[in-house]
């Protein structure tokens, strides 16, 4: 396990030694702020909560998370460092989890830096801080789901742009699987249990229950399994594609 920590340290160092981290954090804060105040009508709603902030997260993550995850493995494959990494005495899954956790911690840092909004809403009124904490956790867990998908797809290719687009598309399908747009594609020919299964895979549905302040075990298990399954495939993809 100590190797996992060594990898997390190196990866986090890599984020902050390049402009990537700063550009990402600034854009995340600017966009989430702008969406909250302008599109979310934070003031006009006249309610002391952060619903207008959190409700945009699924959309914000849709293109910001692939931007972080695309480099995770595609870059290692492109530069050949994956060969160095996988011939060191550490199992593949430790490397997969280490790189994943580092990216997740990084997103967590960006999320924590939105705290001025929390202060603002507490200054203006008396919000239910329990709901806000639940929403922050929900947002982090959902980001973890996107990130696991992105990490897995990043291992599929040496090309970061392809990794970005694939991840955005797959995340979009997961996000929207409960919505008419995707459901109507299956309606008419797929049996109803398939439709229900698809609807239950929707990130949006699970996230929306969390930001209402309800931490349901099912939602946590859902995101947990998404992360587990995609990281498992991630390690499998690396073993399959190395050397090619």
């Amino acid at each position, binding site marked *: 396990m100590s190797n996992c920590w060594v990898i997390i340290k190196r990866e986090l160092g890599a984020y902050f030694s*390049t402009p990537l981290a700063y550009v990402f954090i600034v854009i995340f804060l600017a966009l989430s702020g702008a969406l909250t105040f302008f599109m979310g009508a934070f003031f006009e709603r006249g309610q002391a909560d952060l619903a207008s902030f959190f409700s945009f997260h699924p959309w914000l993550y849709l293109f910001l998370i692939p931007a972080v995850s695309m480099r995770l493995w595609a870059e290692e494959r492109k*530069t050949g460092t994956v060969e160095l990494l*996988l011939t060191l005495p550490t199992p593949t899954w430790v490397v997969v989890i280490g790189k994943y956790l580092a990216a997740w911690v990084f997103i967590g840092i960006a999320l924590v830096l939105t705290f001025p909004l929390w202060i603002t809403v507490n200054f203006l009124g008396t919000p239910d801080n329990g709901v806000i904490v639940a929403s922050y956790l929900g947002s982090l867990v959902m980001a973890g789901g996107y990130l696991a998908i992105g990490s897995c797809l990043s291992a599929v290719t040496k090309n970061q742009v392809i990794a970005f687009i694939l991840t955005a598309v797959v995340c979009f399908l997961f996000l929207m699987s409960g919505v008419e747009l995707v459901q109507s594609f299956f309606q008419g020919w797929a049996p109803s249990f398939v439709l229900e299964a698809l609807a239950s895979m929707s990130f949006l549905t699970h996230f929306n229950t969390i930001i209402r302040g309800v931490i349901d075990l099912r939602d946590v298990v859902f995101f947990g399994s998404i992360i587990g399954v995609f990281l498992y495939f991630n390690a499998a993809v690396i073993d399959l594609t190395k050397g090619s």
Partner: protein
Amino acid sequence: MTTGDTMISIDGLTKDFGPLRAVDNISFDVKKGEVLGFLGPNGAGKSTTMKMVTGYLLITNGKASVCGFDVENHALEAKTKIGYLPEGAPLYGDMTTISFLNFIAEIRRLSGDTKQKQVAYAIDKLQLQPVINRPIDTLSKGFKRRVGFAQAILHDPEVLILDEPTDGLDPNQKHQVRQLISEMAVDKAIIISTHILEEVEAVCTRAVIIAEGKIVFDDTPAKLKEQSSTGNLDDVFRRLTLVN
């Protein structure tokens, strides 16, 4: 272990990439104190063989073991015994030389005094002092290759596998690296791959030539030279690798 012990044992090693047989039933042993020069035209299967021994590529058929550890069934133990310089010396360009070497040392579970001593030893041996605080991306090709070499000898491995260690170095640096290889050969088993025939004469105690995945010559460099009427290694090399 005393001189003469078998450190690397390769038995019937075969690698298929789809319908293409890259390495075809190769067998040889390398003993402690030996420097084995692995020769062959581009695409003959040198790197593929090395990648199988270091545990990067899966083995299609046959066996390889390092210090008695099977590289597939006891991959982690085998990997701790090996120092490996992959082809082209891939490195993390965003890290500085010193942080990169510390990272490799930590993954190899060196800590405290041992870690500092070994990192200092590698820096000293490869004369990296002038660049320890520079990002690897900004280094010249020669320095990059030496950082890759330093990384391979950090943990004082019993087995060294070096894929074209002198590629891209100037004549002085080549001389230096060859001296280092000869120096370290005393208590290690070393495999180096190279195109440069004079290098085999200079550092190797044994030459193995492969062509199209098969061994076509396995003896001392002196014997290789005897095979030529003109005493020119290039002629022998061409005859051995082209006729097939």
